[in-house]
């Protein structure tokens, strides 16, 4: 059976040598090499559940009156887009399971990419010859933020409508061209022309997913062509890779992780309620609710928007830089720009142009670790600032007080944590050296005895 298949395939494609090589591809054995795979499987779930949802979603902002079975919405005016998602959540059998699984998968996808990025960054896996793999990965992350944002904006519930208004305003704030650009994208002023919904829809279900999928394939191909990195060991060197072959050792592991990811997502999709849009109600331009937050991966941007004090930069009546530019555009551009350029910045700093297949431990590169911790702290502070109003409501911490704390922390904590990380790295390395010296002395003592 298998022989027959392989023979059939080889005769028609000539891929037997490739297959043989693939089955013997070596996977270094470390848990952290599997984080990217979690993201991959979450993406597969997103595509599969997303296709199902397109079969029911209506990409139209035309107003209609709800006459479905969910009583609190009876007789309410709403867009056809929102009505269709209410129907997916209430009348379509298993529709809510698929919708919630889709949303959880988006949250997990973004999270897994970031965990994977942390591993790659702090171990120096992005160094030559893997810079291309790295920047493709960062591009996937950036596109994912857009993709996910459009995904929940399309629903047109109270929360998503407010999010869309904020996104439009942030775009409007781009100096010189923001208003022009947004006029093109939205077909006029917010809440946009008739084409806005079809546009968001095609971008969300076709353009961005195809882009992300293509980049994913490129990313994985490059990983395979250059092989995995590995941690230093007795046999592991820059020239020799040690690992378990794809078949039979790694495939069951990867497939197990795939099924575990799908399982966890379906469990969450069935058991934990996410974005219950029938409870939020429809969006109208003149409505808003307290405590509206974006999904977690954009929480740092709402925090940044809130931390900026009141001002627009103007020159004699010309508004050079409207306020939301700082938190909504400048800050994320700086962060993502730093992450993009880091491999080249590092090369500038330490002049290291060599090939690297063996990873650093975070302590082996104290400067990189310190800068990485600093950057992560900056984003972390803004993420926390984004939920300051909830902390005020739940724990009675003054919002204004928190705001000032975060404004100071934004500048102080990254430096502080960076310095602590730097010191910690050096202390760990020094400790290892002492330990090694002691061992050597003991062995010598034993040998002389």
């Amino acid at each position: 059976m298998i022989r027959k298949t392989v023979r059939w395939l080889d005769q028609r494609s000539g891929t037997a040598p490739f297959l043989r090589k693939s089955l013997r591809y070596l996977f270094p054995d470390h848990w952290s090499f599997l984080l990217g795979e979690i993201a991959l499987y979450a993406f597969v779930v997103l595509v599969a559940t997303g296709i199902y949802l397109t079969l029911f979603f209506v990409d139209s902002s035309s107003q209609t009156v709800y006459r479905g079975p969910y009583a609190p919405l009876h007789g309410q005016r709403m867009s056809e887009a929102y009505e269709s998602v209410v129907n997916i959540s209430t009348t379509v059998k298993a529709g809510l399971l698929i919708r919630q699984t889709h949303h959880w998968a988006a949250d997990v996808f973004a999270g897994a990419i970031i965990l994977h990025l942390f591993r790659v960054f702090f171990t120096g896996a992005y160094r030559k010859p893997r810079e291309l793999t790295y920047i493709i990965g960062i591009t996937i992350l950036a596109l994912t933020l857009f993709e996910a944002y459009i995904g929940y904006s399309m629903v047109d519930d109270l929360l998503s409508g407010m999010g869309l208004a904020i996104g439009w305003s942030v775009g409007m704030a781009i100096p010189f061209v923001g208003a022009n650009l947004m006029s093109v994208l939205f077909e006029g002023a917010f809440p946009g022309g008739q084409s806005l919904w079809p546009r968001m829809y095609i971008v969300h279900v076709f353009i961005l997913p195809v882009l992300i999928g293509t980049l994913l394939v490129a990313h994985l191909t490059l990983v395979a062509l250059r092989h995995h990195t590995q941690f230093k060991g007795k046999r592991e060197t820059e020239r020799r890779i040690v690992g378990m072959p794809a078949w039979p050792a790694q495939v069951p592991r990867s497939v197990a992780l795939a099924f575990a990811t799908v399982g966890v997502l379906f469990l969450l999709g069935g058991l934990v309620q996410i974005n219950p849009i029938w409870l939020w109600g429809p969006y109208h331009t003149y409505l808003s609710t307290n405590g509206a937050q974006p999904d977690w991966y954009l929480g740092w941007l709402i925090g940044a928007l809130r931390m900026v004090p009141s001002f627009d930069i103007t020159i004699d009546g010309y508004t050079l830089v409207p306020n939301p530019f700082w938190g909504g555009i400048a800050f994320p551009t700086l962060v993502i720009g730093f992450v993009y350029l880091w491999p080249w910045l590092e090369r500038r700093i330490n002049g290291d142009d060599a090939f690297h297949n063996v990873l650093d431990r975070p302590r082996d590169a104290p400067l990189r670790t310190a800068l990485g911790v600093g950057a992560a702290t900056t984003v972390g502070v803004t993420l926390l600032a984004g939920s300051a109003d909830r902390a005020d409501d739940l724990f009675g911490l003054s919002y204004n007080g928190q705001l000032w704390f975060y404004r100071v922390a934004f500048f102080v904590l990254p430096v502080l944590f960076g310095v602590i990380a730097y010191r910690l790295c050096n202390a760990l390395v020094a400790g290892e050296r002492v330990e090694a010296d002691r061992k050597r002395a003991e062995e010598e003592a034993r040998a002389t005895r």
Partner: protein
Amino acid sequence: MIRVRDVLISAALLLLGRRRPSIPVEEDPGDPRAELVVAGLLGLTTCAAIGFIVAYALDPSTQLLGLSLGLAFIFLAAALVVTAHRLVVNEELEDDYPPEEHTAEQEEVVQLVEEPGERLTRRRLLKLGVLGAGGTLGLALATPVLSLGHFLDTKAYLVTPWRRGRRLVDENGRPWRASDIEERTFYTAFPEGGDNEEIAAPVVLVRLKPGDLRLPATLRGYDAGGIVAYSKICTHAGCAISLYRTPLFDRADPTPALVCPCHYSTFDPASGGTVTFGPAGRALPMLPIEVDARGHLRAKGNFDGPVGPSWWGVRIWRPER
């Protein structure tokens, strides 16, 4: 269980960076007990999968569906975990990394690409031609993108449905009378016969004691006997201003304020909508209003500034009167 614990403990150690040297393991080729466990887990997967279908047919509650489908995948994953650890050979192999580069092939590629070009005599001219043709053709192909919206017509942001004499109505189109508007509360008004969803349509109405009003000179006469009307859209990020803070006991409680719930920009309705807290960079646009002979509220003109978030032209132009 102990095995699992060992895994977690040693993994935690690994997290701290204390890596152990790898020890190749000689595993027993056969493990009948593990095979039984895997078969059992596959059986459970089957049961859960059937459970999903039955649940779908009988009681499609999201919880039952998610639980059965999720567990089916978890059991399958568990079967594969056991397979990976107990049923397949887990030997570590060594191999060479691929060569860093192929210098000979690189050279060949360069030669193959450059060779045909060496016959050309006017290379700079041709380069210029290719650049010009490619660039303009690219531009030509990108031009239809402009049909998406009006790239140059930013004046559209200044168009509002408000005109002199237009009545202020509620969500259902009933005109607001001045006598409807009471102190210490807020109302949403729309232009009569307009589209409520338009961003410049909604205004928020509040009544202050005429003595408390401190309107700047440019806004004098915008109120109708203490009733003031502001655009309901925040000048920071376009959310609706649906919070009105109004003190019961004005000697001690916080002063009246209109607040946006997105980033808590706070505006003072008594002084022409100036910003008193939060990130907004300019005051709320104010709509001049008056009371007509029948007691209805009417617009006396257009807003004193553009509605919605700031952009580069927001301080240069005013909405058309």
